[in-house]
């Protein structure tokens, strides 16, 4: 504890000593791909409170199998990783729960009406350009109603084509390494004319997902086992067309993903004599096509149209070899989404947006008799209307206020009544204040009230769902600051610092609760959680002769306590332990990360470090639930070789350098030291 406090103090010292460092004139030398920077800054023009993001070179050099791995470097974010390559990976922002996070891919939300969470393990880092995380919401006034509709948001933006001399860009990547990984991808970008460009990208991955793990107890057992059934095979293809002219901008994108994987499951005690391994299999097929069109009609008015159709299929099999409940369930989900946003620039610093979204979701499922008997094949109609206004005052104060109206209507197949309609109004207020014109110091604050709707599983899952569920509400209060300074003639070229303190509550939390035995559970609005936290980030960059050094440090402190009324114990004597007010499961009090990227001419060395403090698994902060801290060190080295017009990048990675045996979720062991080699050829 003391050490951690010392560290916080240290960070504060850095924070406040920055101003005294140097105050020379600013330059615009930026690390990373300058084009990407341009894209990012352009997008952020209207953002009152910028989010955290990773982009360009820094993103590329992180050792990550999927976007979930890269997200571990954001402050205030927890990733749940159910062990290994094939396992489920979900994002949780500021401990409010993964169902409160909106996940957006190229501007349009990816939804899962069935369970409300998106498995980020399925999103490849190949071709990803920017990853951003926003607390509350993205504070761009001109956005769809969906962008206002979650408690936290994660945006993935894939690469937009950029051309130099020729009208064609080609890139081929081959990755191989531990877990019998083979990953091949190809990219073709083409310029069809001055205003139209296209991109086609395909990737195939195969891995056995096998690795050894060890459980070693001081003065006790010591066992080394192999993580099995973690294999993954996927094919991902994407094609996009982008167009623009003076007043409009459009894109059309198609995405197809098919995969087969094993779910390795919990590494609990097993008697291998009778060979009952985890043999669950999952097949996925995801397809979507989406488009957006933005038109600037006049200085006063512009509009944006977005539309999407998604079709997802999932098959989950517990084969007869196992003796637990056998299942072969098929799930078909469809979604139709349309959005219309209207921006009015009322005066120089005052704008307003009215956005209306419509979404239709349908879930069909087929499984065991038990599953089919009472399943109502739900359909959901969601209407969202957001009204937002943004004010930019000359003395440095920016404000944004928005109100979101949500109407929800569920329909079933008549087997039983669907849940009643829901009508909800939710507000958000954001402020940003820049007191000095010449100093890039911003103070910010926001309040947001938002909910998540009960998912189809919450409401209708056979032998579990409960139709009477209310939405799960969150309240967020945040204050913070950001500071940025560039130095022209100094070893340190730039420093960015940000810090936020927040208080969130989650009420009517939807939790599963047992009824009369382990097989029959139901969902109730029971939980109440209070979250207090501090997120900090420091990103200095340095330059010494030909060596560029960029550093990114983040730290999160979080107390997320369970004040569920049901957990209050009556006075039953000293023998009874109370878990009321305990830290909620899997949320560490302290967590942090560091990335140090060093480049010298065509060489690049990247070091990354992640620390997740001690946590508790389900059921209160008692010794039997203790999950120790973990920290991993990853290193990668890459070299670019230019041969005529070709650019060959060779990268070697070593992950979990010190072979730490750790778990993100108890009994889901993670890999020890592992290797990867990446060859990338750009034409």
């Amino acid at each position, binding site marked *: 504890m003391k050490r951690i406090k010392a560290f916080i103090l*240290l960070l504060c010292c850095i924070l406040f000593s920055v101003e005294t460092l140097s105050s020379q004139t600013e330059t615009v030398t930026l690390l990373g791909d300058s084009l990407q920077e341009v894209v990012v800054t352009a997008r952020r023009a209207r953002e009152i409170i910028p989010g955290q993001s990773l982009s360009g070179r820094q993103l590329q050099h992180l050792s990550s199998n999927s976007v979930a791995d890269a997200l571990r470097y954001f402050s205030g974010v927890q990733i749940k990783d159910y062990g290994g390559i094939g396992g489920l990976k979900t994002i949780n922002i500021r401990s409010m729960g993964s169902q409160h996070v909106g996940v957006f891919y190229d501007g349009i939300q990816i939804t899962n009406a069935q369970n409300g969470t998106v498995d980020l393990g399925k999103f490849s880092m190949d071709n990803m350009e920017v990853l951003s995380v926003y607390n509350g919401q993205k504070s761009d006034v001109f956005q769809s109603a969906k962008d206002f509709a979650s408690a936290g948001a994660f945006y993935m933006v894939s690469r937009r084509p950029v051309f130099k001399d020729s009208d064609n860009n080609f890139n081929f990547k081959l990755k191989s390494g531990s877990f019998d990984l083979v990953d091949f991808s190809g990219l073709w970008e083409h310029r069809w004319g001055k205003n139209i460009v296209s991109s086609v990208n395909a990737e195939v991955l195969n891995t056995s997902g096998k690795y050894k793990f060890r459980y070693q107890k001081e003065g006790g057992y010591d066992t080394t086992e192999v993580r099995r059934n973690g294999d993954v095979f996927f094919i991902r293809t994407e094609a996009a067309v982008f167009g623009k002219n003076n007043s409009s901008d459009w894109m059309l994108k198609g995405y197809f993903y098919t995969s087969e994987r094993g779910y390795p499951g919990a590494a609990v*005690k097993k008697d291998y004599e009778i060979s009952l391994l985890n043999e669950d299999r999952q097949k996925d097929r995801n397809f979507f096509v989406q488009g957006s069109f933005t038109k600037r009609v006049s200085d006063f008015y512009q509009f944006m149209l977005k539309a999407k159709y998604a079709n997802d299929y999932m098959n989950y099999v517990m084969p007869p070899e196992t003796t637990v409940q056998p299942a*072969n369930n098929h799930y078909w989900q469809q979604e139709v989404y349309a959005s219309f946003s209207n921006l009015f620039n009322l005066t120089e610093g005052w704008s307003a947006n009215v956005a209306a979204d419509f979404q239709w979701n349908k879930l069909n499922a087929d499984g065991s008799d038990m599953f089919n008997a009472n399943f109502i094949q739900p359909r959901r109609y969601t209407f969202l209307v957001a009204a937002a206004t943004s004010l930019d005052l000359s003395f440095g104060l920016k404000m944004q206020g928005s109100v979101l109206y949500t109407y929800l209507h569920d329909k079933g197949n008549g087997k039983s009544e669907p849940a009643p309609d829901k009508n909800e109004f939710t507000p958000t207020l954001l402020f940003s204040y820049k007191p000095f014109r010449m100093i890039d110091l911003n103070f910010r604050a926001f309040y947001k009230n938002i909910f998540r709707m009960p998912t189809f599983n919450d409401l209708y899952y056979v032998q579990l769902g409960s139709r009477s569920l209310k939405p799960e509400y969150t309240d967020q209060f945040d204050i913070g600051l950001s500071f940025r300074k560039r130095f022209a003639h100094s070893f340190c070229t730039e420093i960015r610092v940000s810090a936020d303190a927040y208080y969130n509550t989650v009420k009517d939390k939807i939790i599963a609760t047992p009824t009369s035995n382990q*097989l029959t559970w139901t969902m109730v609005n029971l939980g109440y959680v209070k979250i207090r936290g501090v997120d900090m980030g420091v990103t200095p960059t340095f330059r010494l002769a030909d060596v560029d050094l960029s550093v990114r440090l983040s730290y999160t402190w979080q107390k997320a306590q369970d004040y569920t009324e*049901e957990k209050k114990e009556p006075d039953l004597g000293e*023998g009874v332990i109370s878990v009321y007010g305990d830290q909620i499961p899997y949320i560490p009090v302290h967590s942090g990360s560091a990335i140090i990227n060093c480049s010298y001419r065509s060489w690049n060395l990247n070091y990354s470090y992640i620390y997740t403090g001690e946590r508790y698994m389900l059921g209160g902060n008692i010794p*039997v639930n203790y999950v120790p801290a973990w*920290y991993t060190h990853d290193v990668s080295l890459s070299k670019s070789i230019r041969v005529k017009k070709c650019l060959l990048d060779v990268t070697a990675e070593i992950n979990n350098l010190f072979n730490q045996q750790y778990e993100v979720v108890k009994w889901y062991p993670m890999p020890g030291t592992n290797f990867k080699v990446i060859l990338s050829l750009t034409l």
Partner: protein
Amino acid sequence: MRKKKFLFTVLVFSILFSACRKEDIILPSESAVVNPWEQMTGDIYGFFLLNEGNMGSNKASLDYYDYTTGTYTRNIYGERNPYEIKDLGDVGNDIKIYGDKLWAVINCSNYVEVMDVNTVQHLAKIPIPNCRYLAFKDGYAYVSAYAGPVKIDPNARIGYVAKVDTTNYQVVDSCIVGYQPEEMAIVGNKLYVANSGGYRVPNYDYTVSVIDLGKFEELYKIPVAINLHHLEPDNYGNLYVSSRGDYYDVPSKTFIIDTKRDVVTDTLHLLPNSNMTLCGDSLYVYSTEFSYITGAWTVSYAIFDTSTKQIVSRNFIKDGTDANIKVPYGLAVNPVTREIFVADAKDYVSPGTLHCFTPQGIRKWSVTTGDIPAHIVFTHKPLKPLNENQ
């Protein structure tokens, strides 16, 4: 200077974050003195409580209550068996004592653990897939298991009962019964098995299998009601059978089988039954009935007189402390003192609570258990303290 400062920062950063990992140890047990006022009564020295632990969490655990000191000790298995990999395992489902041995069924780890009842030291591990409950007679243990061979319907295996020699721990025979067999009872030379068919919803099994222990063959099945669970023989040759219902339209009930004729003689519509235990002629029954239609729970604690076949009490907890119990999950009555024990599993993921009541139904003491406290067995032999084992 600045460079130094930077390096210093990095250094401090790495040291700070590398020094916070504790040694991974075998967790010691935890004791709480809950009843220092009373000494041992009769020849019962204590009881073992098996906590199920939530599925997939590897948290089956064993607790012990010592009547001689009034001390309740949680999680005694690990420290007494530090070299047993991953402790007891995943989901404890039944515990019984036979002779000098303590037997525990670990459902999702697919084995039966056999321990010395005096020391709780591991003796043997018997692999039986998806094992559920135990019964003993004449040197053999009978273990019901969900996972028989795949028959006709590949999506639902028929269950079986394994016969285990208690001296060498070998499975010597097996007998196919109904779907997803649960509790067993031995009356005379017949083994009764409650078949639930819980994996075949809505086509539940509805039978009790009757096995002749001489030939170890199923004689016939007695049709009773859907989703059967517990069996409890009384002193009059009757066998009480609990049906869980379907949680929608069919409520939970209790049935009585006359074991001389092997027919159902009584249907107790008004005795919903989640769990029961017999003490003398009193059958203690609690029920936690849940309906997916209304979303409502109904909890009741009843006493049924097996000599008159009458309900004598609708709530054996007399002081109103049943309000503290969220989900009753375990039930036991001390045969000597007639104290009543009710275990509360709460939300299944928090540690549970065990409540001890006087025979009159007044709460005496309560203690925190492991996760999902469920199965209790009284012991006639004192458990030796840990340091005397070695």
